[in-house]
């Protein structure tokens, strides 16, 4: 069973009268010879790791070996000022939490990569809390996100070294936007619109990690990716259309990634990594850690 485009998945849903989550269950069962239970068990393992990584970042001491990250998640979670209410503040803190746990050699679920692992957990945990959504439904939202990731990986790339950060935090934001839209009752078309919005906002985002470490700007980019997901989904659920269809937006990310200089793709030679301060930090880290 093969899907090459997001529109193939939508077509399958229409033909089989199934939603996108069930389409992905079919896909996995058939291609990997698994039972429905095995698929859901696997999803539950992923979700448990996601929830745990959020918890750890919010409750434990997390200072990365380089010293670049230092218990920021808790600082945000407990911040007295809220720009848009407690939910956005908490969602922001959750994304940072996972980034910090990852940098400190904690356990995370890549979604779709380790560098972008904060966005999906932050969005899902926030959806559970804000909308009182039971875990079982969240597993279906994970399935929907995997549909987006599947097509993105085929027609673009998750690798920062190929597609820059739009391949990592960009694709994660798109996957998360799809999940939110699905959980709030959006149809297949709206899910794809949300994906389009989220990717358009990430178009051309470079990968420029200071010192080559998955910390700065990765962690705060995850947090902003969460906001991207909620805003993109909000627009889609309101019924606005993303003039350029999501499949074409994905092809555009591939084109843009190919056009990007290798210096802006994970090599830590351009962008933030190459700023005066970025270079100084790099020198300092490698001296102290060595």
């Amino acid at each position, binding site marked *: 069973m093969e899907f090459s485009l997001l529109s193939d998945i939508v077509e399958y849903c229409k033909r089989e009268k199934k939603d996108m989550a069930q389409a992905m269950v079919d896909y996995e069962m058939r291609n990997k010879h698994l039972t429905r239970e095995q698929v859901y068990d696997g999803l539950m*393992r992923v979700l448990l790791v996601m929830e745990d990584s959020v918890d750890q970042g919010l409750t434990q001491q997390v200072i990365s070996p380089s010293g670049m990250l230092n218990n920021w998640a808790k600082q945000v979670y407990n911040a007295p000022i809220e720009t848009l209410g407690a939910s956005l503040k908490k969602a922001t803190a959750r994304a940072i939490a996972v980034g910090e746990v990852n940098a400190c050699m904690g356990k995370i679920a890549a979604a779709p990569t380790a560098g972008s692992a904060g966005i999906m957990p932050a969005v899902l945990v926030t959806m559970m809390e804000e909308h009182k959504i039971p875990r079982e439904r969240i597993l279906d939202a994970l399935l929907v996100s*995997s549909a987006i990731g599947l097509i993105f990986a085929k027609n673009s790339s998750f690798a920062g070294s190929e597609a820059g950060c739009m391949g990592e935090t960009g694709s994660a934001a798109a996957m998360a936007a799809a999940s939110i839209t699905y959980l709030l009752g959006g149809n297949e078309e709206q899910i794809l619109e949300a994906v389009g919005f989220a990717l358009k906002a990430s178009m051309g985002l470079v990968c420029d990690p200071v010192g080559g470490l*998955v910390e700065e700007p990765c962690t705060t980019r995850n947090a902003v990716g969460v906001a991207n997901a909620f805003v993109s989904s909000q627009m889609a659920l309101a019924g606005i259309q993303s003039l350029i269809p999501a499949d074409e937006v994905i092809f555009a990310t591939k084109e843009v990634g190919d056009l990007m200089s290798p210096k802006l793709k994970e090599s830590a030679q351009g962008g933030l990594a190459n700023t005066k301060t970025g270079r100084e930090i790099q020198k300092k880290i*490698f001296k102290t850690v060595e």
Partner: protein
Amino acid sequence: MTEQPSLFDILGPIMIGPSSSHTAGASRIGYVARQLLHDEPKKAIITLYNSFAKTHKGHGTDKAIIGGILGFGPDDERIRQSPELAKKAGLEWEFKFVGDFVRFHSNTARIKLFAKNGGTVEVVGASLGGGRIKIQEIEGFPVDFNAQTHTVVIIADDVPGSIQHISGAIAQRQVNIANMFVSRMENIANMVIELDQALDDDTLKEIKNFSWVKFVRLVEPMLEGSSRYEK
């Protein structure tokens, strides 16, 4: 139809951070080396190449590889303390670094292990991203496998009929051969046989007992969840 990716390639791997290539993949290379040694290691000499050499500290590549050599999976939280645990287990190690070596993939490690009982093994592996690896060299022989399924690695004199003897021994156990790769270098054949299921020790012994076989090992898949997540 080519094999389709699993949705757990997208939602996963479940792993110890920070990097699927520099941490998760690195631990898997260490784990394969341990299996190829097939004994308790007492010493490891590890050479890191290219990007592995340059950024290992910040990514915990060193801890990940030592963890793998101790038998920890890529999602095992003990990786963080692997140097201390290695000391307790009586494992000594030494790292060497080669910054630029174009012949190798950017994330490559060479691991030489010495067993408590005298055996040694040397293996070169590359980490390809997403936790996937490629074993490229064993005991100086070029190989190419990803350790995602049960894999038998054999080094033998290149005698006529050797492949039939070996596949015969495996077929007797009702185990299916999924793939088989043979490479030859100066009268020595190297076979990498991927199987649908594990092979028992007796069959491995039987293969080992062919007079022309020099080396035979089973590498078990080290997939995510092999140190199962429980809550």
